[in-house]
């Protein structure tokens, strides 16, 4: 079947000129190839899009069937209504990108791929950085495209009632992009947790715990300091990147919420970087 064809190999003319070398651009391209060449990744992103469009449709239809007179709303309230419908998918979509973010790295540990990855990039940190950049960029683009798609779905459902919104209105486009940003940051947070724990089950459980269980449990504790902590929990701060919370009495400005979310992501990724360099692969 296969035999070595003795090529004209003599020491004199053996190795061809090796002009290429390891570069961050190359590692980034490698991580992009890895991301797109796994069915599970492609499926996760498809589910994210379907969720965003589907939830937008369900939300706006159920609002209409409620019989509320939407046409009487102010311009701002109309835009707000459409944004709410368009970004509703992100509440469930965050679980999809959380699982994806964990699996991007734990899948390498469970299959042994990590040894090939770190063999090719022995300084290690560029591999994690490239993974983070690729995951963030793709998740942000897919997330934002899906919320913009959901905007058109919602607008179409509401078109008969006279409720409209302009996509390019900052009050509309910013929350739509904000939902994409939140999803991308959740994916990064999950990547960090996955790298720290190196276990798919443990990583997914931890991230889902932070996103869903932690805010619920804290809410049930009556102590005042616990209530003070609530706005600093990852999803609570994150939701205000796309959902209007300015009506709440103790509203935190957008930038502060973004900083809180970045703090969670930073802690997770920094811990991951530290352990990745320190541990044996």
């Amino acid at each position, binding site marked *: 079947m296969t035999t070595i064809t003795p090529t004209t190999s003599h020491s004199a003319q053996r190795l*061809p000129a090796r002009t290429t070398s390891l570069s961050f651009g190359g590692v980034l391209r490698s991580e992009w190839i890895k991301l797109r060449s796994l069915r599970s990744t492609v499926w996760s992103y498809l589910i994210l899009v379907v969720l965003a469009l589907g939830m937008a449709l369900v939300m706006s239809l159920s609002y209409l069937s409620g019989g509320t007179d939407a046409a009487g709303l102010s311009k701002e309230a109309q835009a707000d209504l459409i944004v709410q419908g368009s970004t509703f998918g992100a509440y469930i979509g965050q679980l999809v990108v959380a699982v994806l973010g964990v699996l991007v790295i734990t899948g390498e540990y469970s299959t042994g791929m990590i040894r090939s990855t770190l063999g090719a990039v022995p300084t290690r940190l560029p591999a994690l950085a490239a993974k983070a950049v690729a995951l963030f960029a793709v998740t942000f683009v897919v997330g934002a495209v899906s919320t913009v798609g959901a905007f058109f779905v919602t607008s179409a459902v509401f078109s008969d009632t006279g409720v409209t919104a302009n996509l390019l209105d900052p009050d509309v486009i910013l929350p739509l992009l904000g939902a994409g940003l939140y999803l991308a940051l959740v994916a990064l947070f999950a990547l960090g947790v996955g790298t720290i724990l190196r276990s798919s089950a443990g990583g997914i459980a931890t991230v889902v715990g932070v996103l869903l269980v932690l805010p619920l449990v804290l809410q049930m504790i009556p102590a005042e300091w616990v209530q003070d902590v609530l706005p600093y929990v990852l999803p609570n701060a994150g939701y205000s990147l796309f959902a209007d919370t300015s009506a709440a009495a103790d509203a935190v400005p957008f930038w502060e919420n973004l900083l809180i979310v970045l703090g969670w992501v930073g802690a997770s990724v920094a811990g991951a970087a530290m352990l990745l360099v320190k541990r044996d692969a």
Partner: protein
Amino acid sequence: MWAAAGIRSVEDMITAEGLTKRYGAKTAVDHIDFTVQPGQVTGFLGPNGAGKSTTMRMIVGLDRPSDGRVTVNGGRYAQHRAPLHEVGALLDAKAMHTGRSAYNHLLAMAATHGIDARRVHEVIELTGLGSVAGKRVGGFSLGMGQRLGIAAAMLGDPATLILDEPVNGLDPEGVLWVRQFVRQLAAEGRTVFLSSHLMSEMAQTADHLIVLGRGQIVADAPIADIIAGGTRSRVRVRTPHSSQLADLLARPDVTIMRSEAGVLEITGIEASGIGDLAAEHRLAIHELTPQIASLEEAYMALTADAVEYRTEAIR
């Protein structure tokens, strides 16, 4: 336990100095020094748990040495600008994602170093994976996984190759293929460092052997020397007067075993000595054959201590 003598060039070789790996209280690799020379196949032998894989993992920076250092082609693996061009490593036939196709696995590995798709196709042809390159790795047999691992190791056309158990899981044809392949790589002037637990395979592939036992180097010598020096030669004698001959030969330094009726396996005295003794006492001899020690026996003798130690440890 002596360092390999020979020409020392900084280029294209692996050098370990005081290399050590400890896991808690257990020392897996204990201050070993060795040099793997270019242009030949260096075999790496040792019982399970002797520290072979750990040593190989430290060479490519997957494990961090607890002490000492190991360099490849003049520098630490991680310090090279293009590690894949310096060293190709097959450390584990399963170091790949099961959900990805062989082609995409190689393409992603190649991309890190800016190696183009043409080279990916070349290594696929080189390892005979052409018909399965588009298939997902999860469905691969162990042998196909080994071929893919070798293909990945060859991506950077490296001057040094490190192969951990490359024939594991291969059918006889695949074993032959790997043997010819590594021989050719060495003939091209590359450094080849190969571990295997198949002694017979090593005897046919390697030029030089480094034997590891209990984390220490037990032998580091050309393969012919190890085979010759590893065991005392044994002589097989077939004679109708076996008990008489055995009595004549009885000396403290001579071991005599009766393998079947009329056949003696004698260690500790040369064939000529036995023949002379028999002639002196007018005993007929039907067969007098010096038994050539095999690498397997030499290896067993060298690592006996390490193996016994392990058995005790289990108890």
